[in-house]
């Protein structure tokens, strides 16, 4: 099914925003979205979340005869799949340009850079070698699949453990994980792809484009680098003309980002290793927050509050002071009567009449007493800072206190920020 086309208004809006250096989610031009790496219970299984883009990678191994041209080296096989779960535009078994591009780039990034020592994967030269198979599945497409896929692949490869092998003459014994601890792969370095999207004929660039931004981009530059500042591959698509210093600038940005991401991956691997050693619970189920409503959960977003103080002061100054209310008016509710000369009915009052905590600028206190014999006191309240309402029902009072303390905290925070 084809994706719904982008309307002209949306396209113009996105391009205008890029020109003004603003992004849809409030990021800066060189900012990445939140990256979250979680490992599964099996070795070699990893899910990477880049904002809302989710990618799953599974590494497995098998003993196979080696290639004729390279009898002493193991085989690496990469496969990336775009499932219809990721986006309605992806159809199963459809060879699209995007799929071919992602597969090629992943292969180039991980195989041609020789980040895995393939010689160590050889068991019997010319007869049996390990074939490492890396399967990447895209679970949700919200832009920048290449980066997420490369992070997932290298994390899964670093996490993966292959079975131990013992060779006696011509006999090969493969030990199961229970008999002997599986061995990690020997990884020389971690190449990670960083994507740059170019807009308006190459005049503006964005790092880590989201799906909307990707739709209006002119061209894409993908730089695969490791933390030792070695470039593993560069690919430019879209046919845009890039200047030399633009490419150099991108590579500098990429090196900064790659070192941050590599640290993140190492930390995640370290955490997982620690938990497994201590015997704690690990896996995907543990990485999800439990017993919390996450239906309306939003990530932290930066809010622009540069002129809140002035606006707040303006509003406070502009509002007219409320008229002086009559002190302690007595309202008679339905269904009540009074006997005598207007003595106040004290049945509806509770013993403890607490005062509401003072807000910032309170004027004269006001007491409104409603006489009624109903159990539920219906009190309408005005939370402006000019009125103080005296309540008779402690339950509602506590609710009000909770609201006002929240309001006070909010005001304090604004004041603190300036």
């Amino acid at each position, binding site marked *: *099914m*084809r994706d*719904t*086309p*982008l*309307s*002209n208004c949306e*396209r113009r809006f996105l391009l205008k925003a890029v020109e003004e250096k603003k992004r849809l989610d409030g990021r800066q031009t060189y900012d990445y979205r939140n990256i979250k790496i979680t490992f599964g219970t099996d070795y070699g299984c990893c899910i990477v979340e880049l904002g809302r883009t989710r990618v799953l990678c599974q590494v497995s191994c098998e003993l196979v005869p080696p290639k004729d041209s390279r009898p002493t080296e193991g085989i690496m096989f990469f496969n990336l799949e775009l499932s219809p779960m990721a986006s309605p535009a992806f159809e199963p078994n459809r060879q699209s340009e995007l799929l071919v591009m992602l597969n090629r780039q992943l292969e180039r990034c991980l195989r041609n850079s020789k980040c895995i020592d393939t010689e160590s994967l050889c068991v019997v030269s010319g007869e049996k070698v390990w074939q490492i198979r890396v399967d990447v599945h895209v679970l949700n497409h919200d832009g920048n699949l290449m980066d997420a896929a490369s992070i997932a692949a290298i994390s899964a490869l670093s996490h993966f453990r292959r079975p131990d092998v013992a060779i006696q003459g011509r006999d090969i014994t493969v030990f199961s994980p229970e008999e002997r601890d599986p061995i990690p792969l020997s990884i020389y370095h971690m190449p990670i792809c960083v994507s740059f999207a170019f807009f308006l004929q190459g005049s503006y660039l964005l790092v880590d484009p989201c799906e909307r931004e990707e739709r209006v981009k002119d061209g894409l530059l993908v730089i695969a680098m490791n933390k030792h500042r070695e470039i593993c591959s560069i690919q430019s698509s879209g046919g845009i003309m890039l200047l030399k210093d633009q490419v150099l600038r991108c590579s500098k940005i990429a090196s900064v980002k790659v070192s941050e991401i590599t640290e993140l991956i190492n930390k995640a691997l370290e955490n997982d290793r620690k938990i497994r050693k201590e015997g704690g619970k690990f896996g995907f189920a543990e990485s999800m927050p439990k017993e919390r409503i996450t239906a309306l959960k939003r990530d932290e977003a930066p*809010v*622009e*509050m540069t*002129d*809140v103080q002035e*606006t707040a002061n303006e509003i406070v100054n502009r509002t007219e002071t409320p008229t002086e209310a009559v002190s302690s008016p007595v309202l008679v509710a339905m269904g009540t009567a009074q006997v005598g000369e207007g003595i106040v009915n004290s049945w509806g009052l509770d013993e403890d009449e607490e005062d509401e905590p003072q807000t910032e600028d309170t004027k004269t206190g006001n007491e409104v007493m409603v006489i009624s014999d109903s159990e539920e006191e219906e009190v309408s309240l005005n939370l402006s800072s000019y009125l103080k309402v005296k309540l008779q029902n402690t339950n509602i009072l506590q609710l009000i206190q909770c*609201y006002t303390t*929240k309001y006070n905290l*909010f005001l304090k925070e604004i004041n603190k920020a300036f």
Partner: protein
Amino acid sequence: MAVEMRLPAVHKPISLAASQSNRDDKHLVVPGDVITSDTGFMRGHGTYMDEDRLTASVAGEVERVNKLICVRPLKTRYNGEVGDVVIGRITEVQQKRWKVETNSRLDSVLLLSSVNLPGGELRRRSAQDELAMRDYLQEGDLISAEVQSIFSDGALSLHTRSLKYGKLGQGVLVLVSPSIVKRQKTHFHNLPCGASIILGNNGYVWLYPTPGHQDEEAGGYYTSMEPVSLSDREVISRLRNCLLALAAHKVLLYDTSVLYCYEASLTHQIKDILKPEIMEEIILETRQRLVEHEG
């Protein structure tokens, strides 16, 4: 920038007594529900045979015509019928036709011979016209058209051979489900509140400021780029929020229901209409007025 804070509260769902009676005579099913174990029926769309039992594969209403049982889904892509008014967006410009996206399973087709040439002339389409197709309609343009016929694979063939159809200019597009747009004699309405509306059968609804005078010679391709006044914009924004409220509560959309909803919403601010509690209030009032209007 003012920040509004609201804390969650429990609100009870509102349902009118009138809607309860309608639900009883409809046979609603969900995927996996067994419709009948009788083997004498032929199975139609939306059903499949599961060990001799006729089971539904979509969520919807069961329809029975003699021996044929099919399930009509509640939420579906637009299935076109001849004579429907649709609003679509041009996705491709091909040799002698345009491909239009109309929220259906396949892109609809607008043949060059089915459009009115600007200037309203009636002549044979020449190679010149073919080369100048992009000047009339480009990728991304919105058009209103009528379904002329249906191809064998289900794709719709559209035409704009009337002055009321053609390229749409300044306005607001609202996307709703095709099943809640009521089929009526006319889908073009000039609402008394000061805006005009086109209710496309495919779920695309177009709101635009009422044009001052009809431009006869333009033939549907002249789009005025004059700035729209603030009052018109406010009316259109309010209408758009009302449409979203009606769609959220599955109220059938037609000119009367939209108008009643607009009038019920006048007491609130435009941006407040989208809040759930206020939405419920407005829809309740609209439903009551509609029931009175019919009864």
